[in-house]
């Protein structure tokens, strides 16, 4: 780089630029938090949904599945599984309940997590709540 462009100019761009964008990011975050109530389906967060989120977390579901496209890519997207399963929490519960403990020979299979009825209901309600978050029409289709 030429002599015209000095180290102290570079330093000023670094400090000034970074600081400006940190503040811009904070302002955008503030605005996002203000608009979230219209999008994030927070009215649906019941104690049951909160329990379901904990069940989701404490069984590391994200270690195989994606949720709104984030997570591992080994098993299907679950952000819209409630809709894929015909808008049925019962279908979700039945699926989780029926996983064979020793898997399926040669194939990927979800582990048997031995969830209680309360936990099953919670995680199903959590997935229902998630499917009703406004995600700018993602995923493109029902297959997730």
């Amino acid at each position, binding site marked *: 780089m030429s002599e015209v462009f000095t180290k102290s100019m570079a330093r000023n761009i670094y400090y000034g630029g*970074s600081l400006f964008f940190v503040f811009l990011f904070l302002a955008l975050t503030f605005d996002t938090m203000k608009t979230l109530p219209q999008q994030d389906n927070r009215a649906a967060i019941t104690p049951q949904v909160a329990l379901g989120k904990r069940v989701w977390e404490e069984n590391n579901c994200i270690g195989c599945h994606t949720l*709104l496209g984030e997570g591992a890519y080994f098993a299907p997207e679950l952000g819209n599984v409630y809709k894929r399963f015909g808008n049925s929490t019962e279908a979700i519960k039945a699926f989780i309940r029926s996983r064979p403990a020793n898997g399926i020979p040669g194939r990927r299979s979800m582990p048997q997590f031995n969830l209680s009825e309360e936990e099953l209901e919670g995680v199903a309600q959590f997935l229902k709540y998630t499917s009703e978050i406004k995600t700018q029409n993602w995923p493109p289709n029902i297959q997730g």
Partner: protein
Amino acid sequence: MKYQSQKVARLYFMAAIGLFTGQILFGLILGLQYVIGDFLFPAVPFNVARMVHTNLLIVWLLFGFMGAAYYLVPEEAERELFSPKLAVALFWIFLVAGALTILGYLLVPYSGLARLTGNDLLPTMGREFLEQPTITKLGIVVVALGFLYNIGMTILSGRKTVINMVLLTGLVGLAVLFLFAFYNPDNLVKDKYYWWWVVHLWVEGVWELILGSILAFVLVKVTGVDREVIEKWLYVIIAMTLITGIIGTGHHYYWIGTPGYWQWLGSVFSALEPIPFFMMTVFAFNMINKRRLNHPNKAAVLWAEGTAVMAFLGAGVWGFMHTLAPVNYYTHGTQITAAHGHMAFYGAYAMIVLTIISYAWPILRGEKAANQRAQVLEMWSFWLMTVSMVFITLFLTGAGVLQTWLQRYTDDPLPFMVVQEKIAPFYWMREAAGVVFLIGLLVYLYAFVARGKPAEDATAA
């Protein structure tokens, strides 16, 4: 080695390489589970193996960064480390906590580990990359604070070079942003929004400061180019990193329940994110072309060049490929993401740690460079690992393109598992490339054996 206390870096580098090896072994298990679904089931289910794979990556990179800091900070500050004893103590705390956590993942069902560690008191577990029990996270904070204290005291009471100050900024940022790992609201959208403050603002923010300063340090040492020139480059690169990368976080805010304007902001700013990586490539090659000395450690120079190229390809090019919102609408959460993740992490962060180890290890043993044979072996390992990572990325990209097409783009989208079976040949090829990577890693490890007895042992005896 100018200062005795730099020696503490050796411990950190050894742990980094050991955990790196573990990470690769679990990577091979995961790759096999992609095609032989019941491999090791139910003893080591995919989610457990993946958690071990990604957590080992994070921990070995952190060991690498800390080792790098303990090596280069005293030399830059022109004084001994503030407290070598603290550095050794923190090493063992971090290693034992890390090992216990990994063993916990492998030996106890995850829900049991959550109960055992009292996740109910402050639930932070079960989110991607932040799976560590809350108590481990607290341990990480303690280690980070002790580490920053040690490094900070050294830097602030010594010569304050740009490299040291940028490194310190990056490390402080790393520690501060990690605190968002403790924020886990019931609202999934908010949870995800701030989760990215750890994940994105680490790897596309402050970690790039750490990467840049380590690369700048090594380039100062192996090229002999005037420090003023290198520091100016460093400032410009990290300026571009933060100018593009902070708002670039928006490319994660397209489809998680956040407002639509993030599609514009995320697309525009993250499309600029390759710029600092490209500048890093130009920087590294420029400095090496203008070198004023021929450093005998050819392997270290090769790693530095490799980092500059592979970080640009993996983070820059493969990141740009799926970062624009209209493209990402179809590729989000497919194997395209996995392809990008593999080459970006290897190219930017694994390779910079291997660069500083390559440069510092001989010096810590009391020699300027390893013997010819060990260097040739190390360079072989460089090519084996780097080329096989290119192929891993290409095969995953192939899998991802097909997956995007079959599951997302056609008029008759197919279910996830049907698509997975159709793209299995790509997974097999990825696994084969993974085996070559392991061979490369074994050559890398053997290169350490081939170095023979350290020179300093001979003088000590």
